[in-house]
């Protein structure tokens, strides 16, 4: 076995994309009637479901509430059938807790929480099928769900991963590319202002390459924001057609 080749000499990746091409993104909003806002998003084979409740009164102990802004509560979980081998614990493990925390930080930066003092906004995200870029799929799905719930935000939050193979940045990594052992950087961007909501990278990378990698991730995020924008507009059209009747 001669190992995997993440980027062929002709510039193709394992799944036939070129270095800067994103996976196919499909999304729908308002998938559930019970919740205040919900969305379903596919980014390649990574499928995420996001549900938003709120803003409402702070549940549980009152001491958690903040007097000047809303509390954002995030919960991330993965379906037991989401990976190639069945997962035993759907949520509550270290990885999920970390992911929940990251999501919370991301959305605290994007949602205009100061409009809702002493209240709470719940965001629940579930990964139905995992194929790399779970964080970014969650963020994108949650953004749509927040839009659906009508919660004011500074901007869309768009997230995308980027990797670095043979001196070339690769946008939107799939599972095979992520597990290939290379660098992977996750970026959540507010595309209009260009502000970064969250940036995370675990592996080692030479300092010289960091700028190109971030640049590639930002371009990918901007591409995603157009797709998300399209989804929202289409949803609005559908809804307005329905309400007109």
């Amino acid at each position, binding site marked *: *076995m*001669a*190992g995997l*080749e993440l980027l*062929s*000499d*002709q510039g*193709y990746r*394992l*799944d*036939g*994309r070129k270095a800067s*091409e994103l*996976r*196919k993104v499909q999304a729908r909003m308002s998938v559930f009637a019970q919740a205040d806002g919900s969305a379903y998003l596919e980014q*390649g*084979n990574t499928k995420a479901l996001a549900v938003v409740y709120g803003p409402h009164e702070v549940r549980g102990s009152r001491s958690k509430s903040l007097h000047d802004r809303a509390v954002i509560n995030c919960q991330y979980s993965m379906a037991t059938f989401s990976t*190639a*081998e069945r997962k035993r614990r759907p949520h509550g493990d270290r990885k999920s807790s970390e992911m929940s925390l990251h999501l919370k930080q991301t959305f605290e930066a994007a949602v205009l929480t100061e409009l809702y003092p002493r209240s709470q906004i719940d965001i629940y995200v579930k990964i139905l099928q995992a*194929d790399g870029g779970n964080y970014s799929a969650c963020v994108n799905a949650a953004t749509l769900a927040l839009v659906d719930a009508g919660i004011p935000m500074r901007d869309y939050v768009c997230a995308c991963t980027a990797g670095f193979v043979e001196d070339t940045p690769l946008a939107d990594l*799939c599972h*095979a590319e992520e597990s290939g052992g290379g660098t992977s950087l996750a970026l959540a961007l507010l595309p209009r202002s260009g502000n970064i909501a969250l940036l995370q990278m675990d592996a080692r990378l030479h300092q010289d390459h960091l700028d190109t990698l971030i640049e590639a991730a930002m371009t990918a995020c901007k591409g995603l924001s157009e797709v998300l924008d399209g989804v929202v507009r289409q949803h609005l059209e559908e809804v307005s057609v329905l309400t007109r009747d």
Partner: protein
Amino acid sequence: MIKTEKVLHLNSSKGRKVRVVREHYVREQVPCGSALCQADCHNDSKVLSGDVTHYVVPDVGVVRDFLEILEFRELQGIVLTQTAYQTVQHTRGRRHYNRLRALLKDPRHDCVLFANEFQRYCYCPRDKGESQDKWHTRNVYNAAVWYYNHLAGLQPVVMITEDSEAISQFSALNSGVYVISTQEYLLSFWPDLQAAHDLYNSIAQTLQERESEVVEKVYTEHLPAEVLEAGIKSGRYIQGILSVNKHRAQHEAFVRYEASASKNTELNSDVLINGAKHRNRAVHGDAVVVELLPRNEWKGRTMALTEGQGEEQTLEDTQSQPMPTGRVVGILQRNWRDYVVTFPPLEEVQSQSRNSQKILVIPWDYRIPKIRISTQQAEALQDQRVIVRLDSWESTSVYPNGHCVRVLGKAGELETEIQTILLENCIHVPPFSDAQLREMPINTQENPWQMDSSEVSSRRDLRDTHLVFSIDPKGCEDVDDTLSVRTLPGGKRLELGVHIADVTYFVREGSLTDLEARSRATTYYLADRRYDMLPAVLSADLCSLLGGVDRYAMSVLWELDAETLDVCTVWYGRTLIRSSYQLHYELAQSLLNGEEVEVPELSQLKGPQRDQKMAELLQALETLTRVARHLRAQRDKGGALELEGVEVRAQLDEEKNITALVPKQPLEVHETVAECMIHANHWVARKIQESFPHQALLRHHPPPKQEFFNSLIDCAKARGFSINTRSNRALADSLEQAVDPQDPLVNKLLRMMATQAMSNALYFSTGACPEEQYYHYGLALDRYTHFTSPIRRYADVLVHRLLMAAIQLEKEGSPSKPLASNKELEELAHHINNKNRAAQHAQKQSTELFQCLYFRDKDSNIDERCVADAVIYAVRTNGFLAFVPQYGLRGAVYLKDREGQVVSVDGDGKCEWKAGTLQRYPDRISTCTSTGTHTFYLFDHVTVRISVQPSRCHTDTLCLELISNKPHCAVQPESQPAGRGRSELVQEVVRWAEEASLQAEEERGKKSKLSREERQFRQSKTPNLYVLLQEISELALLDLSVCQIRNTEEQTCTASS
């Protein structure tokens, strides 16, 4: 882009089967890589040529199993599908995959990769229940059809497959796409390419055989890679390269450490691997992992001389001290190459086994085990030399399996043997291709090459200001160095100049010629021919600094103080020169000796004009000699070594028959030129190392290990000399003093042994080595590189480019192009080192071949020339090693034969075989028989008879047989060819050159005059009319001697085997 999905079944890390779904994106725009493309594909890399009769699309199975056939350069227009490419990647090893990649990258091969699985109309998803092979074949077929349609039917497409069902299924479907089997394809399209047919048959047969066999295990299984890795880390196992003892190939092998790998301080020697069981299927050159055996199982290495091949004597008493012994537990990296083998004669084949199609063939290299081959051509191939590739070595098989690749020719024929030598050293020198030659500038009678005027203005013009001349061997074509020396106005300073052919001007980096030169790395000099690194138009014409024509050069000019000869300033740069004189060594030496000789360049001139020119030239030569002596003295102070290698030249007549073996004759002028070159190399090394401290190509010579000197010290002790080997200075001094006034050969032999103890000089990149290791031991210089022979060494081409970059850096602050990184340069240096070693081996082996040819035609019992004087230089338990100065031969002389009889010496020195015993001492060996005891001491002169021991599978070897313990004296002066007389002369000249005093100078003047007369005398006395013919054949031969003379330092590298 359209998204589809692909379902794969993979093995998970825990070993379970896992179903994985992967995305698969297909698109319409996939570059096709053909010159005939009608649809504006973006073909930015390699493109298939349009002028072939058809395109070939090989199926997955063909690429996987028959890649070697596709490697034939004659096969053109190959479209490799991504399907096949990935299958190779997933199912075959890394080596196979890398070969495929190299094939695709090689610009000389007409083949491209077509990403068919990403093409929307080519890709078809796998049907339910369809086998993977069928699916792959379908994909490849679809790709072939698409290709045909994409090129609008301009080119018929042939798909070749090994799947007979596919042929019947697809062949009738499309008109322009033919589906045929590989065999049929070769038969109908390449009927003349016999080599490919043979290769096909042999691979097909091997594949068939592999399916049907399983028996009991002969060897233990290798451990899995993870276990090995862990074992190496924990120190339980040792990692190293296996090298097999050439003389005891079946029993002894050693594992050499990779220096960094061992933390184990108690083990500082090699590890012995004893027997085939312990060697466990490892082949010479493999990177293996070894486990040490318990101490009580350790063995010593065998010290006795073995006679011939085959029989093995493992007498316990002949072994040395026990040394670490181990067994191979796993193999990290196979290092199999192509091997030359000989088919056994038919009778042997038939008796060999039940299965007559399997044949054990014997490799030419002793160190390689016999190889099992399946073939039906055994009859046709008997006594032929054939190239074989190893396929596998299962633990159930005693011998490895292989297949034939190509037939070289009948064993024993000169051409076959030369090809064998080249192949065994992995030297690949096809004729230069048309594409490469097309890059060359043109220089013909009608269309002479002209200098570029912008180039002329950018260079420093030395044509009118400097007297430039070259000194080379007679008839040399590739003159890559010229010299100049002059007194600067004012008389306070001298200017010494070394001007080297500017090869890098003609050979641009990355051009086809450059790639070819890089892969060859050096010009190969064999005894009777040479293989150039650069095409002849460059090496013999435009780059060559011939006399009387304008040429581009790279120059180093030093300003020296006229009195002290110290270097004041140095200038490096590109220049324009015109060499005024093209001298050869003998001529230059006679000029220096003040003899009346005719300089060809001045033969037109007359009278005072001629005298004046002559005086100028003489003046320059003398100054040069003075400077060179000064430089030499400087280096001697640092401890430069004067070492002795045996260099013998075969003189050939027209039919390549050998007429005499002649030792090389050194003159002082050789040393003068060499000294200037060393000086230039040294200064260039300084320059590039200072400019690029991390990525300059230098050459170092590591100090030898002290234990290698043991035999030298012991030998010298036998004659009462003490040799101090602590530093190169001490060694040089003590060698200087170890002169026996009665026997000049003693000193020569000691120097020869010192040479053997040396390690090789190597190229390296400065970033890969700490600075204190830059030192060149043999030349006693802190930095050294190769700069002066870019026509025949690729390292020099690299150094030229580095020097240009360094000059540019100085001028503009940054080099125009990015330089090769340290890692790339180190890899390149490694490659060049390997090739150089191969070139040396090939040269040595070809010389030995010619030595054997020389003695083969002579009946050793009658012919006087087969009897010669020999000197004992080492003692072993059952004989001694002797050196024959007349022919420059070294070999073993046995005192004990297979029946246990020993040599006895009677009163008048004649030798006989008799029953008796043998006793060995450190410095002598004595035989004891009924007639008495006789002792042979080190450095004794004896008489030996030289005969050829023919060998069918290997090279013939020369055999020495003792006939008398008295020195051999020439019975008839004329039947004793000049060799002996001459070798003495060689001795004397060497010694005189060392003394380098004025008195010796005069003396040498007389002597060399004498020698010339003597030589003429001898030549007139030889019965044959070879004198003229020799001159012709020497044209080719002399280059060999250039190579040797120039690299005085390289003499140190005639490594001990």
